């Protein structure tokens, strides 16, 4: 009997390709995604290049040498040529705030040596620490080389007994000062990012679940019955789209209200940006759910495909792991997902505190992709209208 039960279950599994996919292929796929993120990203020292600019306010031989040294560092990408960077400190701060660069380095004179002020975005905690280490190392190496040269010069030209002790160079102790231009005064710098990440992922799951209701209606012939009334397929899809969007928006609102109550995320202070980002993200996610539902034949198929797609999009798009720890290629691939665009938008709202106009690229991408998905869903649903 036990053997028969075992056999029956094995046979059922073999007859169910979607279950096989979820059992054997999906774990491998996810292992591979995370292996690429962590193994090919930070794990083997190929940290993605950090976008920086340098403002050489001293403009001396020493500071120029330091900048030259830094430009050769493989971990940094200079977004503007150091010689062409003619910005004020405030303009540099704005670039960091807008996310155009990850960090701005301001080189200043301190005594006869160089000191660097790093204007950072503390949401990328890895970048701040990494650049601090790189810049400190470069300054210290330059200092050591300078002092060795001085010692050699003194040893050959100064009479014995004339040499005094080495100057006590205070800049050697702490040559890099980090200034957090965005996170200052914020109680919990990354919690809004995680709130958005998780909320968007569940928005997608919710949307695919909502799409599943359409397939359920089709399977139990309610859909045909509905279409035999005055209801048209256009009205049905639009009704479902608006419903799923409303539920998704409410879901996000509840999530962020909780984040405000418990973790101090300032929802009320950013409500306009939050609302428009949430609404457009929910519209896009709902259209995605409807597209998947109309592309699938059964709820089982939808369930399997949606799990794979949503988890993959969430992993690549930054819902699970911040995209800044991923390699540059993965970050680019991430832009093919709803999650990345939505999270970038929420990042602008809650972290960078940019005005609503700054959300235009994210809103445009989400809205256009949502409309395209909805149109595709409508085209696919034609086959259900009449056979």
């Amino acid at each position, binding site marked *: 009997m036990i053997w028969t039960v075992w056999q029956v279950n094995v046979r059922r599994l073999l007859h169910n390709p979607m279950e096989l996919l979820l059992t054997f292929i999906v774990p491998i796929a996810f292992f591979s995604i995370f292996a690429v993120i962590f193994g090919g990203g930070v794990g083997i020292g190929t940290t993605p290049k950090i976008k920086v600019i340098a403002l050489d306010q001293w403009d001396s031989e020493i500071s120029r040498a330091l900048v030259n040294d830094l430009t050769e560092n493989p971990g940094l990408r200079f977004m503007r040529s150091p010689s062409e960077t003619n910005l004020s400190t405030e303009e540099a701060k704005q670039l960091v705030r807008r996310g155009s660069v990850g960090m701005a380095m301001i080189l200043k004179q301190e005594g006869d040596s160089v000191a660097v002020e790093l204007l950072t975005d503390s949401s990328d905690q890895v970048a701040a620490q990494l650049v601090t280490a790189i810049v400190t190392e470069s300054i210290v190496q330059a200092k050591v080389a300078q002092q060795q040269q001085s010692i050699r010069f003194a040893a050959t030209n100064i009479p014995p007994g004339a040499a005094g002790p080495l100057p006590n160079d205070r800049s050697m102790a702490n040559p890099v000062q980090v200034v957090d231009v965005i996170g200052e005064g914020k109680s919990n710098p990354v919690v809004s990012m995680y709130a958005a990440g998780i909320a968007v992922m569940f928005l997608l799951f919710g949307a695919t679940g909502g799409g599943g209701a359409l397939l359920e209606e089709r399977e*139990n*012939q*309610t859909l*045909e*019955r*509905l*279409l*035999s*009334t*005055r*209801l048209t397929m256009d009205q049905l899809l639009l009704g479902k789209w608006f419903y799923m969007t409303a539920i998704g928006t409410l879901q996000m609102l509840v999530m962020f209200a909780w984040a405000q109550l418990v973790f101090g995320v300032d929802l009320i202070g950013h409500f306009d940006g939050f609302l428009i980002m949430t609404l457009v993200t929910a519209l896009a996610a709902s259209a995605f759910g409807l597209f998947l539902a109309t592309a699938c034949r059964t709820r089982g198929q939808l369930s399997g495909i949606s799990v794979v797609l949503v988890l993959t999009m969430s992993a690549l798009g930054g819902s699970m792991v911040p995209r800044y720890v991923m390699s540059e290629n993965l970050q680019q691939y991430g832009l093919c997902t709803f999650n990345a665009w939505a999270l970038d938008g929420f990042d602008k709202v809650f972290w960078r505190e940019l005005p609503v106009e700054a959300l235009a690229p994210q809103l445009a991408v989400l809205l256009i992709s949502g409309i395209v998905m909805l149109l595709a869903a409508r085209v696919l649903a034609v086959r259900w209208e*009449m*056979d």
Partner: protein
Amino acid sequence: MTAAHHEPPVLELRDVEKSFGSLRAIDSVSLALRGGEAVALLGPNGAGKTTLIRCISGLTRLDRGSMQILGHPIETEGIRSALGLVPQEIALYGDLTTKENLYAFARFNGLSRRASRERVGWALKWTGLEKRARDLVGFFSGGMKRRVNLACGVMHSPQILLLDEPTVGVDPQSRQRIFRMLAELRDAGTTILLTTHQLDEAEQQSDRIVIVDQGRIIADGSKDQLVEQSVGASRLVKIRVDRPLKGPLKMQNHLSGEPLGETGKDVVTTRIDDVSHHLTDLLHSVRQNGYDVSDVEVHAPSLQHVFLHLTGNELRDG
């Protein structure tokens, strides 16, 4: 011929054809229903009944032929609102209450909010589900679901109601309840086209029976007309005698050319064309053979005989 036969049909199909690949599901079907008429489409599973209902309700596209509803081509904007569809499946929202389902379908059929609320009250009474109005339909028995399923199809008071196997899988009690509901609709003047493969349902619930097999209409008329057209008006007579026969009985020539009955059996079976005259002659012949009659059964030809005669097959599945 009644006055109704002079009225234009409320639903008319002309040379309708539909194929799925190489399978011809409907083959040159022409059919007309007059106002208030109840017509049963009788046929085995796979005969094309459901496809025909789907074509009429606009869910399946015709390959050929034309249809008219209330004298207008089926393509006329809004004309299909004269139709009500009750599908074979329980096509309801199981996670909504009876009242919510009824209200939703009233709205989908174009009723205003107020009219929908009024119609829901009527439907609850009609189905006898007033006390279950706030219960989730998903937890109902099969018979109760069928009643709600039926009610959802008539929320907009359609002139023509299409029912696809409306009593599949329900117990006899629920079936009778559904029949009563249909009778009320008929009394109110609703034209009914129902598909069934149950002979008694076709016989009880319709004025006219259309027998469909392999996508074609093979007979159309009242039960008596069908019988007359196919097996004729003969009756099956079973006569039980007072003791086992010692041998076949010799009968009058106009009753049977050959002796009837088998040695050792106490029942004689035959067919007669004219009950009023031939039954008396038959009983007289039995007595002339020296036997007393202890029981007589006279059977009219059934739809089963008609179907068998027309198709050469019993009503079958698949």
